[in-house]
């Protein structure tokens, strides 16, 4: 096959890679993007998007269940609901197909070329792509590594059979009777909650003393409470030691030191993700690493001239929006524009029930940073809109410097608060002070009023509490 020569080659078609490709092509750079799977990466195909679809289906089912069991606060009643999970998955897949097709369309519109196949780096300018038609050599002036991440396997619990990863959990066609989720992080809890709402008996096994350890206990409290209400059993401080000899039940060492076995139709292992930095010839470049991650500077440059890396393969937080922002920056840099990574905050959202959103520093992190802080909190139980949604659980919390009131962080837990991420991020990127938020009219009646009230509370000027 004739060799392909291009200016820019992007390895990985996830959010980081495809955004790089779109922007680079828009800027007139001869761009080729390579991925062995469909465009969109983990996010679109087996991550963010399909999980959100499943979570929503679970919530809808749960509402019907509540109505059928007389638990509806609105006085609704319904027949016991049923679900055709195959149809649910088909609906979910339809969304995924539309989105991945959309990405392909955007790339085409921008003028970027794409190539399906597994890339293998030969040197800093040459990549071989194993396509359906055979190996294809690509020469590029610049390479962007955007290979992403993949679920971590437990050595004692390799994927296969009833042991599934998040990818498998999002592709079940039949509801299991019971599901054990190994790992109480956001992925395990999001999927576990969705299945719990679909009527599956869910048990969460978390090695740390509490779930969602990246957030503090105050923020995760409403989630733990809700899990209990949904009948999810959460075992913290518990370690999975492996499958029993029968290959059916799960052996767990609990917090109190006893060994128990858990029977489960499916075992979801969601103990984290690791960067995909092996298996595609990266070692040929002998790049300096940061642990398992490729080391980058504040322009996403690796140690090798002309080789950039973005997204999950470069470190935490492994989030799609970080990768996209990096990709946009890198495309601009390749086009010769001055850019540098100077983001003040990367929002983090957890689609548990209730949702958690955090931007910037929490109170503890701010204090660890040496700041003296003001913290203002406003609970949704004092918010009219939250009441009318029958979702009074959760709160908004704002953290600001005591000396000049510059907002360092905003966090919330509550139904639907993931949408607050935009407002929180904007405030922090713009360098808002408490007064800026407090003096901005927030529409009534919305749950967002709690944002303004939290700032007022931090200033000692709270109105509705």
């Amino acid at each position: 096959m004739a060799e392909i020569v291009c200016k820019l080659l992007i390895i990985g078609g996830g959010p980081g890679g495809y955004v790089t490709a779109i922007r680079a092509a828009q800027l007139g750079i001869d761009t080729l993007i390579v991925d062995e799977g469909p465009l969109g990466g983990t996010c679109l195909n087996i991550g963010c998007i399909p999980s959100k679809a499943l979570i929503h289906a679970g919530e809808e089912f749960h509402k019907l269940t509540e109505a059928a069991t007389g638990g509806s606060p609105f006085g609704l009643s319904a027949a016991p609901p049923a679900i055709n999970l195959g149809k649910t998955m088909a609906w979910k897949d339809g969304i995924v197909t539309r989105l991945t097709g959309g990405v392909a369309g955007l790339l085409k519109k921008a003028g970027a070329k794409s190539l399906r196949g597994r890339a293998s780096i030969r040197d800093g300018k040459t990549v071989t792509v194993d396509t359906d038609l055979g190996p294809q050599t690509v020469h590029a002036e610049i390479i962007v590594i955007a290979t992403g991440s993949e679920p971590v396997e437990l050595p004692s619990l390799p994927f296969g059979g009833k042991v599934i990863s998040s990818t498998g959990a999002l592709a079940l066609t039949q509801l299991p009777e019971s599901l054990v989720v190994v790992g109480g992080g956001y992925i395990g809890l999001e999927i576990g909650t969705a299945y719990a709402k679909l009527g599956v008996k869910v048990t969460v096994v978390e090695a740390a003393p509490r779930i969602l350890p990246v957030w503090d206990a105050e923020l995760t409290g409403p989630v733990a409470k809700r899990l209990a209400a949904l009948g999810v059993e959460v075992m913290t401080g518990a370690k999975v030691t492996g499958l029993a000899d029968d290959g059916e039940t799960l052996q767990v060492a609990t917090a109190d030191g006893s060994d128990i076995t858990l029977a489960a139709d499916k075992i979801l292992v969601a103990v984290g993700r690791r960067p995909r930095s092996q298996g595609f010839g990266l070692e040929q470049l002998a790049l300096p690493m940061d642990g398992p991650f490729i080391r980058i500077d504040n322009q996403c440059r690796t140690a090798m001239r002309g080789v950039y890396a973005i997204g999950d393969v470069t470190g935490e937080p492994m989030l799609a929006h970080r990768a996209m922002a990096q990709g946009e920056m890198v495309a601009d840099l390749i086009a010769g524009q001055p850019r540098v990574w100077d983001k003040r905050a990367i929002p983090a959202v957890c689609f548990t029930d209730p949702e958690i959103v955090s931007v910037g520093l929490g109170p503890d992190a701010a204090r660890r940073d040496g700041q003296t802080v003001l913290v203002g909190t406003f609970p949704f139980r004092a918010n009219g809109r939250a009441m009318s949604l029958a979702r009074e659980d959760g709160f908004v919390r704002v953290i600001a410097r005591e000396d000049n009131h510059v907002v360092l962080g905003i966090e919330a837990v509550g139904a639907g608060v993931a949408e607050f991420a935009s407002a929180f991020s904007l405030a922090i990127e713009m360098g808002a002070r408490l007064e800026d938020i407090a003096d901005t009219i927030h529409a009534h009646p919305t749950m967002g009023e709690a944002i303004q009230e939290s700032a007022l509370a931090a200033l000692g000027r709270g109105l509705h509490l």
Partner: protein
Amino acid sequence: MGNSDNEIFVIRMPDVGEGIAEAELVEWHAQPGDMVREDDVIAAVMTDKATVEIPSSITGKVIWLGGKVGDMISVGSDLVRISPNANAQIEAAAPEPAQAPPATPDADPSDAPEPAPEQKNAAPAKPATDAETHSAKPAAPASGAPARHVQPPRRAAGEKPLASPAIRRRALEAGVDLRRVSGSGPAGRLTHADLDAWLDAPEPAPVTGGRVRRTEVTEIPIIGLRRAISRKLGQTWSKVPHITIVEEIDVTALEELRAGLNVERKEGKPRLTILPFLVQALVRAVADQPDMNAHHDDEAGQLRQFAGVHVGIATQTPQGLKVPVVRHAESRSLDDTAIEIARVAEAARDNTALRDELSGSTITITSLGALGAIATTPLINAPETAIVGVNKMAMRPVWDGAQFVPRKIMNLSSSFDHRVIDGWDAAIFVKRLKTLLETPALIFVEG
């Protein structure tokens, strides 16, 4: 309150002569509320020619001033209002300087506005209403540079600058390190205006060596004599095409003569400088070339040659450059010339020179003495047609045809109004001066 208590006397800007329509207020000797006696000087005003002191014609209390220093006051305008009543209230200061005389007929002083009670505190604590815009305040750079003067608390080391993403990107693209820019917003937030100000005039990076760039500007109003000098020299420069000739003069003989005369000086006789010799040389030279001792009235299209030689002596005074005049140099002896030069220069420096002593010159000498340099390009004292600049004297080796000999050499830099003086004539004039000064006996030989 009796009627006489309400009587207010108005002192108007006098006609200071020579068809002058306005004069500049250069000094107040009294302030509102001050008691003044008859004949006390209350103000000084300046025309193009001279400073004139204005005395009070009455004893009383100053209740109103007609302007502030630097204002141009029309002849006939109210300058000061004085009440004989020591308890009279002070009026608000004049809102507009250089006003035409008020419409109020001056025959009836009681028509003058009666002080209103609310004006009681209006002055002197509060200056004229326009004072804020006119007074010398700290200079603000022209376009929106608020950050320059608002120094917010500096960010701690390592702290990120507080700025929106748009400003950060603009700064990056403009190559500005925002950590070095002061923010004028709340908590030191950087605004687009802060960035604009920085781009207009970047502040230096903090230097540990203790040397900082200073950005303050001091505005000094150009008033008084300086304004007169400024206007006059500006007009001369823009209107009169100059030709300047620099010639070397061997003053060895002149210096021997001068030294000899000074040694022989009797008590009470002035010590001679080179200037009286030069004045007398000019008298000789202009006799042959009367165009050089003339006024060029370009509006009338006339060259006015004078029989009398009135030599202006450019003099540095504490107030600035003045040109006192040695009148009728053609009628003076060398000693008399020396005495007169010393007297008028002293009067100019003391600020006691009369208007006549500061005007009416027909040709001017400018000398910087020991600072005289090698050559200068003097501006003529318009409407005169010539000025002679004296440069520094120095001992120099001169080839006399067989050897180098030490000679005292002094240059003359002379400028002429080229509209009426051709280069040829200017050269002849300079050559004549050279001859006279190099052979000083010629200065004193009649005919």
